[in-house]
């Protein structure tokens, strides 16, 4: 930074451009991120009014409701679904990212673009396509019936498994991109040195590749796990109201059910999970290094 050069100038002259440039973004973040998030924490400790409004009487009621088995089970189910999605995205995405990273630069760039193109399609319509494919009289069931593999159509839709398919196919790029960028930086000479020193492929992977690419793996965990935990569109589109995750519960509190403090408390829970993961992440990597774009 040229702070020494700037400091030599009179302070007043420097203030206006500084304010004009860093001001708007700072103001926007404070007004529309910090204040709303702090306010939602406040609301989570308030009680629900008679008409579904917020009564400003402090209470822990919403947090007690979360621990109620009906809600707590949804939370556990969401955590499990997000966990399985993350695990599978990394298990599928790691070899895929590795293959791309080992291709020549221009081929790799094309493969990454090829990965992104499906995501320029409306996400809801992509989810709907799974429904069309697997519905009772859809192509998959027709095929199974024709070949005589099954005598009755299988009900694939509105199940946890189909929701999982939707989650994984929606989240996979968010695992592949950070994995790719760490694997790509991995020096080939390190792997060769390891092989020359007598390590087999497995040892090289466990001792060299995996530890070096670990920040990428953790970025992938954050970028897949956290959105999967809060998502409600996948469950709405593929779960048909039968599969509910935290996101659906929060949405409903601000829609038909009108229990804002409960919705706020569940949101605070999501914030806490996010903060915990970010805290762990910052123990061994800088947040700025996370490949988010």
């Amino acid at each position: 930074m040229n702070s020494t050069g700037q400091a030599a100038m009179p302070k007043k002259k420097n203030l206006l451009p500084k304010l004009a440039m860093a001001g708007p973004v700072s103001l926007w973040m404070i007004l529309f991120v910090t204040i709303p998030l702090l306010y939602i924490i406040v609301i989570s400790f308030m009680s629900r009014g008679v008409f579904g409004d917020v009564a400003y009487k402090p209470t822990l009621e919403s947090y007690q409701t979360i621990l109620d088995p009906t809600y707590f089970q949804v939370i556990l189910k969401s955590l499990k679904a997000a966990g399985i999605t993350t695990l599978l995205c990394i298990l599928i995405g790691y070899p895929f990212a590795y293959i791309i990273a080992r291709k020549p630069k221009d081929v790799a760039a094309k493969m990454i673009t090829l990965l992104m193109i499906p995501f320029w399609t409306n996400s809801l319509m992509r989810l709907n396509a799974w429904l069309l494919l697997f519905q009772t009289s859809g192509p998959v069931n027709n095929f199974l019936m024709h070949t005589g593999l099954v005598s009755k159509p299988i009900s694939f839709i509105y199940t946890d498994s189909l929701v999982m398919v939707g989650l994984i196919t929606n989240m996979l790029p968010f695992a592949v991109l950070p994995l790719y960028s760490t694997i790509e930086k991995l020096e080939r000479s390190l792997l060769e040195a390891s092989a020359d020193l007598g390590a087999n492929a497995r040892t090289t992977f466990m001792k060299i590749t995996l530890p070096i690419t670990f920040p990428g793996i953790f970025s992938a965990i954050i970028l897949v796990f956290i959105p999967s935990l809060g998502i409600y569109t996948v469950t709405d589109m593929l779960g048909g109201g039968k599969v509910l995750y935290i996101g659906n519960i929060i949405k409903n509190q601000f829609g038909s059910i009108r229990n804002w403090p409960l919705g706020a408390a569940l949101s605070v829970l999501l914030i806490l999970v996010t903060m915990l993961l970010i805290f762990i992440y910052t123990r061994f990597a800088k947040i700025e290094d996370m490949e988010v774009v």
Partner: protein
Amino acid sequence: MALTRREKKEKRINILSNIYAFLVYAVLYIPVAVMMAFSFNNQRYNYYWNGFTTQWYAKLFSNSALISSLWYSIIIAILSTIISVCIGTIGALGLKKYEFKGKKAINNMLYIPIIVPEIVLAVALLIIFMKVGLSLGMGSILIGHCTFCIPYAVVTIKGRISGDNDTLEEASMDLGANRIQTFLRVTLPTIFPGVMSAAFLSFTLSFDDVVMSNMLSGARQSTLPVLILSMNKSGITPDVNALTTIMVLVIVTAMILNSIIQRSLKKKKG
């Protein structure tokens, strides 16, 4: 020439890994292909395949709810892009160039909308808007969209600002240009590829957004994704598939054009 054992093994691994990559791509492209195929389905609702037709492409424009939501989405996406790119560009430059108290906090704050689940931010904004009495509509959706587009814009553009910028700017000012001239003639051209990527990203993020729009839209008009979400219960009609198919083709074409422009810009520079 006979291949050594090691070469043979490498070749086999290479073939296997190409098959694996192909399978992953197949799974990602299947929904897109199915979505497109059902735009040609000769049936009012997409419950099963009932023969080929192109009628939905012709009838598309008579579905006024669909078309008006499309325009609404496009206008919102354009406005969010303009606001986010303006604030994001000068913000990225300001945050890179100046030191001030609380800068670290702002930098961290920028990661919140990127990382925290979108529903949380949407709900938080809804509560605040209700509190201050802002009526829901285009304004509230715009604020919502910009709140997640600005951080992406800042991060994208900040990555493109190199150390050379300071020297170039100082040279420009020493030669008598004022701050505005320096910004337009020196700074902006050097970060222009970043600004373009940020604009492209903001547009697609806003255009495809469901969660923020669904929470913050008024009763009168919904964006296209919100309309699709609400149609899901009764069944999505094939004309929506037709519209989405057209949209994908337009976006992919725009993306190809964008990469051609970026490449020619790079060539011109160096």
